[in-house]
């Protein structure tokens, strides 16, 4: 008996299309990424600075004189989030650089776009993956740290004057995560290889930072600050948390503008690259 005689039934019970059509894309991509143990280890490593900061808050609450060397004011959160930028870069390089590149390489893009999905659904579904990864090492530990601060040092963090910390954490974490995620997806869409996309992402995030350091310190070029995506993100953080950062030598508005233009550029790349048909004229 041919094997195909084993059950195939017509399907009649079609309901309306779900509104969050992008969700299966996000869920499956996250499942694939989080099934790798090494990646889970990296994700957990992203919480080491959180543990260190909790210890800092604890020590200061136990030994108030330690406040002179380990201040636990609002700047602690800004510095913490700026530190986490490095982890977001590592996470997207290892977990999200192949999101679109692999689909372009294996032709899976057709498996998506020949379904009742729009290109926007596809991009949102994929974008949520690096966004989730980045938020898990910025927003989640940031808010957890704030909650820890409130519980360990209610006399300090319970003050009305420091109520801005919570919203500032949310805004900065979202800004970091959105910019890094959009950049990751755009770079991924420009290549058919996850490895090449990962290297390009590393070059953009780390290479440009090195160029900035050389130009800024070696040649005293202040505008070079705008070249580095990391420094631009830090500049936004310094403005939000009132941190003094000697690497940030220009007004934060310029950095915000650069990041906004970069994000628009990424959206343009995604719009032109995520297609079922490659049109060469």
């Amino acid at each position, binding site marked *: 008996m041919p094997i195909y005689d084993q059950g195939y039934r017509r399907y009649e019970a079609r309901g309306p299309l779900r509104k969050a059509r992008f969700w299966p894309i996000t869920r499956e991509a996250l499942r694939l990424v989080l099934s790798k143990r090494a990646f889970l280890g990296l994700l957990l490593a992203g919480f080491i600075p959180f543990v260190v900061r909790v210890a800092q808050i604890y020590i200061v609450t136990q030994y108030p004189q330690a406040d002179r060397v380990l201040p636990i004011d609002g700047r602690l959160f800004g510095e913490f989030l700026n530190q986490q930028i490095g982890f977001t870069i590592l996470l997207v390089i290892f977990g999200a650089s192949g999101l679109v590149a692999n689909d372009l390489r294996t032709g899976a893009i057709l498996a998506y776009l020949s379904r009742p999905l*729009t290109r926007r659904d596809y991009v949102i579904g994929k974008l949520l993956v690096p966004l989730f990864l980045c938020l898990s090492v910025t927003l989640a530990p940031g808010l957890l740290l704030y909650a820890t601060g409130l519980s360990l040092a209610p006399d300090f963090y319970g003050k009305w004057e420091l109520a801005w910390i919570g919203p500032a954490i949310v805004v900065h974490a979202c800004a970091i995560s959105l910019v890094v995620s959009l950049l990751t997806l755009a770079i991924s869409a420009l290549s058919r290889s996850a490895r090449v996309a990962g290297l390009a992402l590393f070059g953009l995030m780390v290479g440009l930072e090195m160029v900035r350091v050389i130009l800024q310190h070696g040649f005293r070029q202040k505008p070079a600050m705008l070249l580095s995506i990391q420094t631009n993100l830090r500049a936004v953080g310094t403005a939000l948390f009132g941190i003094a950062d000697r690497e940030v030598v220009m007004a934060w508005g310029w950095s915000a503008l650069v990041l906004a233009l970069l994000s628009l550029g990424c959206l343009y790349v995604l719009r032109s690259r995520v297609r079922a048909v490659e049109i060469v004229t």
Partner: protein
Amino acid sequence: MAEDRAPLVSFEDLAVSYGLVQALAGVRGAFYPGPTGLLGPNGAGKTTLLKTLLGFLSPDAGRMTAFGKDPTKEPLEVRRKLGYMPEQDCHIPGMSASAFVAFAGELSGLPRDEAISRAHEVLYYVGLGEARYRNLETYSTGMKQRVKLAQALVHDPELLLLDEPTNGLDPQGRDEMLVLIRDIATRRGMSLILCSHLLHDVERVCEQVIVLNQGQIARQGSIRELTGARRQVFDVRFKGDSEAVRTDLKDLGVDWREGDDGVRLLLPEGLGPDTVFRVAKECGVQVRHLRPGAETLEDVFLRALGHEVQD
């Protein structure tokens, strides 16, 4: 007759171009329920027609209607009723066949539980039941073709679009794939468009055929009609120098096709086998064998492309 039924897809004066390259130039036709073959040489516009149907490309002129809807304006509603098996590879790295097909079902709008259940059924149906938990990247070409078919079938589409489904398959795999496709069309009652340049595949599976050439429809209709008695076909063997016979018959408009065992002659209307005998006698050549033959889809295809005689 398929034309007695309402078409699933119809297109009128459809023109699609890629920049300056005109891929479809004002084509008019329809896909009716049942299996239909879409034939044509490379660059004829077959895939462009399918991609316009999927809403990937917008026509420059003319209109296309699928299930009463315009694929450009309502692509989601149209795609929901289509199952597409692309020509090239399409799999998600790291996924097993069952996860991939279930995922495809979910993307097509099936609830998750139903998608998983149907994925297993469909994978059994295409003959991958035992291998369904294996990573797709470890699959052979034939298995990947079957997975592509399964992902196109999982949501039970009304119209299945198969773009070169036997590509890269060995003879046995090709035969099994064609049996499977034939079964989908006949026993499961699903309409399908089989896009192929392999005439034998189309002839085995399809009832209707559309032949595209240089962005235009060269022939369309049922295979039976197209290969019927429009012309008289004879398989003939001559004894002696048949070159003169060949020249004279070609002058009369006869298609002359060399075969392994004699020649195949396609006589235009108005001529009969007596003409062959007469010309042979005039040339001093003996006719040793003359048997009526049937025109094949290949003959129809070649004629549609303007290749009257292939030596």
